């Protein structure tokens, strides 16, 4: 039953020669990107330091790593806390999902294979922001992360990175626009292809403002206008993302991204991962409606304040 989901596809090696393969096309002649795809992966964003500049595994190394990575991991092995359900019991362990394999040792391309260090400015900015919320993390819902509040999750990007489970997306395409829906956590990116400029600088969006164009058979999507609550590896409203979608075989889209933000990193950096065809469907992920956890967290904090008051006789100033 589960085995049918274990799809292993997609050697997407950037260095390899273009395959002699013609993508299916839409009536207007563009490569057809439509359908259900998964970006679940066992390839990390950053390359483990011990691998140095090694960008690709050999087939033997890849097979060995794959074998180890697909052993179900207990919560503790995943780095979770004790107060946590076992992922394997809910089918959330990656050994139970279709995986988009690649030979890469990291999503980030190039000899460094890691996110560049934050600039001094970015370190200071982020430290100040963290300091402002320190001690107030549970004052109210606004103090909680946008992820915990079910507003937008980090995997949604762009760049779109695998969420760890339920890693599925659907692409729908017309001559005028492309729409991408990610199962987690339900948002749809609608990307105009008609050449219109980005929205004015005062218009800010959770997933940024995306504009697409075709470069040959590759869909290129440029995204700006993020919010000041965006937090992609320390980058915020000045994040600029360029994504490239290229169908490389019947079952695979090569997904590449480049991010830059001079207020956060000294240089731009890039990554890639395969999107592997899935039979679908995408299921509803109505995050806010079932988000009892947020209220439970706040109630837990209130209960602790009461207990502390009873113990010390002092009222919490907050």
């Amino acid at each position: 039953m589960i085995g049918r989901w274990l799809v292993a596809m997609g050697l997407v090696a950037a260095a390899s020669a273009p395959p002699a393969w013609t993508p299916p096309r839409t009536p207007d002649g563009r490569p057809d990107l439509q359908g259900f795809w998964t970006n679940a992966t066992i390839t990390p964003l950053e390359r483990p330091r011990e691998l140095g500049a090694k960008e690709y595994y050999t087939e033997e190394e890849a097979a060995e790593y794959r074998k180890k990575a697909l052993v179900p991991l207990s919560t503790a092995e995943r780095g979770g806390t004790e107060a946590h359900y076992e992922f394997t019991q809910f089918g959330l362990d990656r050994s139970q999902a279709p995986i988009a394999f690649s030979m890469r040792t990291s999503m980030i391309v190039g000899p460094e294979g890691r996110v560049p260090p934050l600039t001094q400015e970015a370190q200071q900015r982020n430290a100040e922001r963290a300091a402002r919320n320190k001690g107030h993390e549970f004052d109210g819902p606004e103090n909680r992360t946008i992820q915990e509040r079910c507003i937008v999750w980090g995997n949604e990007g762009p760049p779109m990175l695998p969420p760890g489970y339920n890693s599925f997306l659907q692409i729908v395409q017309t001559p005028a626009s492309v729409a991408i829906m990610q199962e987690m956590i339900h948002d749809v990116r609608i990307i105009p292809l008609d050449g219109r400029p980005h929205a004015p600088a005062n218009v800010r969006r959770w997933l940024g403002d995306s504009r697409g164009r075709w470069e040959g058979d590759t869909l290129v999507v440029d995204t700006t206008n993020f919010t000041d609550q965006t937090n992609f590896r320390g980058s915020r409203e000045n994040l600029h993302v360029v994504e490239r979608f290229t169908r490389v075989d019947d079952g695979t889209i090569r997904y590449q991204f480049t991010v830059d933000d001079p207020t956060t990193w000294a240089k731009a950096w890039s990554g890639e991962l395969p999107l592997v065809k899935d039979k679908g469907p995408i299921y509803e992920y109505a995050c806010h409606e079932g988000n009892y956890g947020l209220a439970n967290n706040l109630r837990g904090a209130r209960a602790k304040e009461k207990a502390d008051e009873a113990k010390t006789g002092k009222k919490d100033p907050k």
Partner: protein
Amino acid sequence: MLKRVAIGLAACAVLLTAAPAPAHHAFSSEFDVEKPLQLQGVVTVMEWVNPHSWIHIDVKNPQGTLNWMVEGGSPNQLLRLGFTKNALLPGMEIVVSGYQAKDGTNKAVGRDLTFADGRKLFLSESAAGVQK
């Protein structure tokens, strides 16, 4: 029962490190590791909702019956694995090992979930843990 189909085209790379951290909220601020508990009760409702499923169970004790809410994982992958809304119905008896919510109410996270006879709630021997 578990059929292993199609693993592998050419090249498959894997990394053990940097496993994603998909929990969407801070478990340790919602549930209290100092309050471990074990509950045995009868299912009254299974909420197949995101971001977490919630199982409601009636737990009998000498003082009467208390209804507890138990948090679990996102149900979407369970649906993909073939489970349906009939997988866990009112009247079924289950055992929950977990931790109580920090707000002190009758809520808990279900760390391990089994039927009364010890079988895993959602996963049989043929599912997780045996796939290689």
